[in-house]
């Protein structure tokens, strides 16, 4: 049940923008099947960290190790092609704005199909069945398969983006404020969907959010960031119910009902 080797290890990850700190000296490990939340106010470095972890931007200092089988790879020491291949097959990124994660000029079904093709699937009939299955899983009526995502609501676009990422069967997903721009009722539905998917697929996930209620519902462990640093880390309910750091106490007291 408990797998002993971490799936991902961040080691002193630092990213600077000129003189400005994006994130500094971030170290932690993520185990298979574990859901880690990264919380902190706007500008605390959550997105910067996530983009470095997910292979989009190399850190200025430090390293990110990803375990593949028994081997650990320093993802930025790999050549570009190998890193891209890992990004397609080993992990996926759900962007805050679904438009950044979808191809808007391709049909809904095509968006899911592209992910399958990127991992080498070619059998058209099987692909069509998997696409339909995934549309259902994210609660999009399969009659919409040929429609453009442009015609979808924000919540539907986000669910489609999630299907596009998860159909590739990654072991790890990164999500940046996945419920960010959505209405509260739409958020609740998406959250429940994510909760069920993460559990059923035994996914590991790193979820950036500023919403502590989202963190409580979806994550096992929390990292609290401020000014680019980690200031507190631990079991999610322990951090939220018994915060030790002054800043975490401020964050949690602002949302007593979280």
């Amino acid at each position: 049940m408990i797998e002993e080797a971490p799936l991902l290890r961040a080691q002193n990850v630092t990213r600077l923008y000129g003189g400005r700190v994006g994130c500094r000296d971030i170290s932690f490990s993520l185990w298979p099947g574990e859901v880690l939340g990264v919380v902190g106010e706007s500008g605390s470095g959550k997105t910067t960290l996530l983009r470095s972890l997910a292979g989009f931007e190399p850190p200025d200092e430090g390293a990110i190790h990803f375990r593949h089988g028994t081997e650990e790879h320093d993802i930025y020491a790999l050549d570009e092609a190998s890193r891209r291949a890992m990004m397609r097959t080993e992990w996926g990124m759900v962007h805050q704005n679904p438009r950044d994660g979808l191809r808007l000029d391709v049909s809904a079904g095509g968006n899911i199909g592209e992910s399958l093709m990127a991992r080498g699937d070619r059998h058209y009939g099987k692909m069509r069945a998997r696409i339909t299955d995934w549309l259902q899983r994210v609660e999009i009526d399969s009659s919409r398969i040929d429609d453009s995502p442009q015609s979808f609501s924000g919540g539907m676009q986000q669910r489609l983006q999630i299907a596009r990422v998860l159909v590739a069967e990654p072991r790890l997903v990164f999500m940046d404020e996945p419920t960010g721009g959505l209405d509260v009722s739409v958020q609740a539905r998406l959250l429940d969907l994510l909760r069920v998917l993460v559990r059923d697929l035994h996914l590991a996930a790193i979820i950036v959010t500023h919403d502590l209620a989202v963190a409580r519902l979806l994550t096992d462990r929390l990292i609290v960031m401020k000014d680019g640093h980690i200031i507190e880390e631990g079991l999610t309910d322990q951090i939220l119910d018994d915060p030790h750091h002054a800043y975490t106490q401020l964050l949690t007291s602002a949302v007593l009902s979280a």
Partner: protein
Amino acid sequence: MITMLEACGLRKTFTLHNQNGVVLNVLDHVDLDLAAGEMVVLKGPSGAGKSTLLRILYGNYKPVAGAVRLRHDGEMVDIVGARTSRVLDIRRRTLSFVSQFLRVIPRVATLDIVKDQMLTRGIGDAEATERAAAMLTRLNLPEQMWGLAPATFSGGEQQRVNIARSFVAPTPLLLLDEPTASLDPVNRDVVVELIETTRKAGSAMVGIFHDDAVSSRIATRVMQLSPRKAV
């Protein structure tokens, strides 16, 4: 006698950084041993630290000092220093916390909430459904409610869903924080019976009950906590 839990030297303070750094000194030198089949009832005035102690035993609050070892998979494991995945595994199979509040999961139906733990532990769907249905019936929650998410239920109904979920396939260790508070006498008696049956079947429990009649019926031992002062 099988030891299920040993807590020793527990100390807990809360530092309220945003309230002038006030330090609340809540527990000091608290020890507790618990064997299978025991129900230790915590007593003490409001604010004495009863809930705090239960939450430390659950790994929800972090003690300043002391250890909490509990029997998990046949060995004694320290929950205070355990890695997240270990704590979650302990909570899935060994240790549960029952409060008077149900943490509602949006959109999940009552019957599924009660079945969930059983399914996770590998009990088949048919058996899980049957046991969940029997438990909900016993707690006087009518069948029309089983398909609904409890978000809109009354406080007392949510509380009974929570109890059904916790007692349908009870873990070897249970922590009860006023589970009978605000229940009517009929349902309170059902819960008292459930607790008794579960204890006699071998579960070990620590509980807080506001109602003296209830606690004297179910306690096998009483532990007194006294309030401390701010330092």
